């Protein structure tokens, strides 16, 4: 059976134009998707049943037992951490936040190690963003800063920017100028009209220089700024000022580099300066397909987008203190529930080591690095393949993902709902 308009639940582009063929509860072909989508939909290597660590080995156990043990672990803990959430649908994320409140736990999502700093900057100076549809139809200048879409968001350029013809940009490839700013050459910088190669750690200085130029202070700019010539900076600034509509997309090259959220703040303020001349927007290249959704869901319920600590009985947020890496580094949490992410692979070593020391339960369809650190893993359906729910694209547009067939696995929502009920029975409402 061929299913059209399938939503790809891999990256933040959340492409909704895939055509997927399904036979006997398996995906047998994918059209329109990129390499990442093909791997995601065609991949068939799930954990078969819940497993529990016993001594130096592993034993299978039933879903009922796994759910009961998870509830017990969470109830026993003084300072549980509920981490992950970006690889599941909004409905499940919502149960997670309520569970955290009931337990007095810390709940954090993967933005803590991707665009957390972007959110901190947005909280300081706001977010002049727009939807990807606006970019596709209007933007004649695109800036990718510290981002490599060809590797991380393979269809971003073809659906929305470089190669996407739009209503006011009829021949995108000719009419759109693409600027890439990065510390290294990448596949994406190879297709840019202007590649600005910045010295490591130099982004903040380059942003400040561009702000000065846009303000009309060209005479203040030295011959070179962070490895970039004054001439190139003038050229880039002129391209931006003369744009009809410009769009900056930035990646982890800004959020993870020295300066962190201050880099983003400076980039937003550059966008603000550019808006004195023309229309310019700025948006983060969100990684996981529903990491934006986790920020939305956390914010509706708690007022904060990530790193929310309920230990005081109310929601408290303080990045640097209530963020997962800091909590794990300090060895502070005494149990961890990992949902739809892989901190074993993606957190610094010292944090992963703490996960191995405490009871760690992972809810995830696949065996990953965290599996080896966990005490218990519960496999679930994959949202967008055999489970469905709401996700948020990187530009904040909600899109309902679809279930392609009825599989045998429960969804994150089912499992978390049962854990919640059992915790509630003990804790009261």
């Amino acid at each position, binding site marked *: 059976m061929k299913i059209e308009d399938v939503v790809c639940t891999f990256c933040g582009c959340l492409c909704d134009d895939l055509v997927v063929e399904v036979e006997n509860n398996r995906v047998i072909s994918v059209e329109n998707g990129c390499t990442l989508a093909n791997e995601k939909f065609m991949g068939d290597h799930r954990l078969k049943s819940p497993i529990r660590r016993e001594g130096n080995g592993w034993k299978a156990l039933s879903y009922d037992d796994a759910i009961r043990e998870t509830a017990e672990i969470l109830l026993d803990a003084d300072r549980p951490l509920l981490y992950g959430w970006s690889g599941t649908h909004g409905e499940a994320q919502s149960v997670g936040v309520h569970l955290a409140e009931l337990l007095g736990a810390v709940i954090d999502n993967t933005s803590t190690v991707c665009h957390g700093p972007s959110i901190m900057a947005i909280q300081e100076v706001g977010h002049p963003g727009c939807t990807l549809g606006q970019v596709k139809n209007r933007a004649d200048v695109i800036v990718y800063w510290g981002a490599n879409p060809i590797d991380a968001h393979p269809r971003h350029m073809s659906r929305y920017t470089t190669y996407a013809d739009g209503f006011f940009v009829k021949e995108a490839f000719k009419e759109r100028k693409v600027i890439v700013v990065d510390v290294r050459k990448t596949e994406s910088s190879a297709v840019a009209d202007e590649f600005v190669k910045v010295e490591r750690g130099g982004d903040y200085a380059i942003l400040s220089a561009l702000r000065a130029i846009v303000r009309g202070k060209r005479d203040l700019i030295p011959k070179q700024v962070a490895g970039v010539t004054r001439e190139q900076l003038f050229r880039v600034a002129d391209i931006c000022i003369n744009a009809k509509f410009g769009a900056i997309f930035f990646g982890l090259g800004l959020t*993870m580099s020295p300066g962190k959220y201050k880099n983003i703040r400076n980039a937003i303020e550059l966008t603000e300066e550019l808006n004195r001349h023309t229309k310019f927007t700025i948006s983060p290249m969100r990684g996981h397909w529903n990491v934006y959704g986790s920020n939305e869901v956390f914010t509706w319920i708690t007022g904060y987008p990530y790193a929310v600590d309920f230990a005081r009985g109310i929601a408290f947020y303080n990045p640097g203190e209530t963020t997962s890496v800091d909590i794990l580094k300090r060895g502070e949490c005494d149990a961890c529930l990992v949902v739809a992410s892989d901190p074993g692979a993606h957190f610094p070593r010292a944090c992963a080591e703490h996960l191995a020391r405490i009871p760690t339960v992972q809810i995830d369809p696949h065996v990953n690095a965290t599996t080896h650190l966990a005490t218990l893993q519960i496999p679930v359906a994959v949202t967008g393949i055999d489970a469905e729910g709401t996700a948020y694209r990187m530009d904040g547009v909600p899109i309902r993902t679809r279930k392609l067939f009825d599989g045998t696995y429960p969804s994150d929502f089912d499992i978390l709902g049962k854990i919640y009920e059992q915790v509630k029975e003990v804790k009261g409402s």
Partner: protein
Amino acid sequence: MRGILNTGRTIRQGSYVERKNSPAYREEAASLHMNQVDMLDLELEEGSHVRVRSDQGAVVMVARPADGLARGEVFVCLGPYANFLVNPETHGTGMPDFKTTPVTIEPTTEQVPTVREIMERYGGVGYED
């Protein structure tokens, strides 16, 4: 040799991300991309093993030449090999310095550990798929 470790996504890392215990994932995640002149200096060929050390410890990876990197810059895709070396300090931001880890690199004949072996070194118990 001393260098600065940068990390980021690659399409191969993304392709195998749901099969982290596969040889294909290991091949990508344990690849240390470096400048060709630096490789000559260390007498490394593509595929040579190197011991990469930071203030957090040392892990064995595989050297690969890369065009876009200046001397002293090395790149490893995000994953357990890079994170073996990343310091958890976040300077009050929640975000570690994933893109600027000072490292030293030397040739070695030691084997590259599997993801499972790295997790066992962390105190975990390997699960066989």
